[in-house]
């Protein structure tokens, strides 16, 4: 019962956050929304585990959190520098 309530509340919160993600207006709003959305997904997964009575799979929540973090960093970095890395000019990096 309590878990259903929590899941419902989180879903409503997701709805609101989703509105922000779709609406924008700036990229930063979207990034913020994505980050929050990821957190909410982590909650949903954790709560769902308890809801069905098999809360063993919390490793998944950890992966979600991790990916969420990396994704946000990557996006922020992309926005700040328009690139993902610093390919330094004077280096020989034989990729092939």
């Amino acid at each position: 019962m309590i878990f259903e309530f929590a899941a419902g509340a989180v879903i409503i919160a997701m709805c609101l956050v989703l509105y922000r993600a779709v609406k924008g207006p700036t990229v930063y709003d979207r990034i913020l929304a994505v980050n929050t959305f990821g957190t909410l997904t982590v909650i949903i997964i954790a709560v769902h585990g308890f809801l069905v009575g098999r809360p063993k799979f919390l490793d998944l929540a950890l992966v979600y959190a991790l990916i969420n973090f990396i994704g946000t960093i990557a996006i922020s970095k992309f926005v700040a520098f328009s690139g993902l890395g610093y390919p330094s000019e004077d280096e020989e990096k034989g990729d092939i």
Partner: protein
Amino acid sequence: MSHLVILRIVSKFLIPFIFIFALYVQWHGDFGPGGGFQAGVIFSSGFILYALIFGVSLTRQAAPAWLTRAALAIGVLLYSGVGVAGMVMGGNFLSYSVLADEPTHGQHLGILLVELGVGITVAAAMITIFLTFAGKDR
């Protein structure tokens, strides 16, 4: 973004845990969700995080091109090697039961090695792909 102190410290602190988590996922795949593929991706995501914060060239020092290339090949060769071993030991290709005295032991061994192969290849592949993209000049 390397001048951002907070980011650097937090990620330096996190990256070892990411690798440990990847290893956990790799070995825990038999009992819970996870396995070679997921572990490989998580392992590579540690590298990706490092590359995002500290730059591609530093990451290339940690994972040089020859190493990732070798790992790519080693992973798939390990997988198919297990299969061939099954053939040599008298079963069909990829039959693990003949690898040890008892079928279930053989299965365990085979799955362990095979998942390891998958993990190595996937990690190497993801690192290669990411670094090739991030290291390309505009």
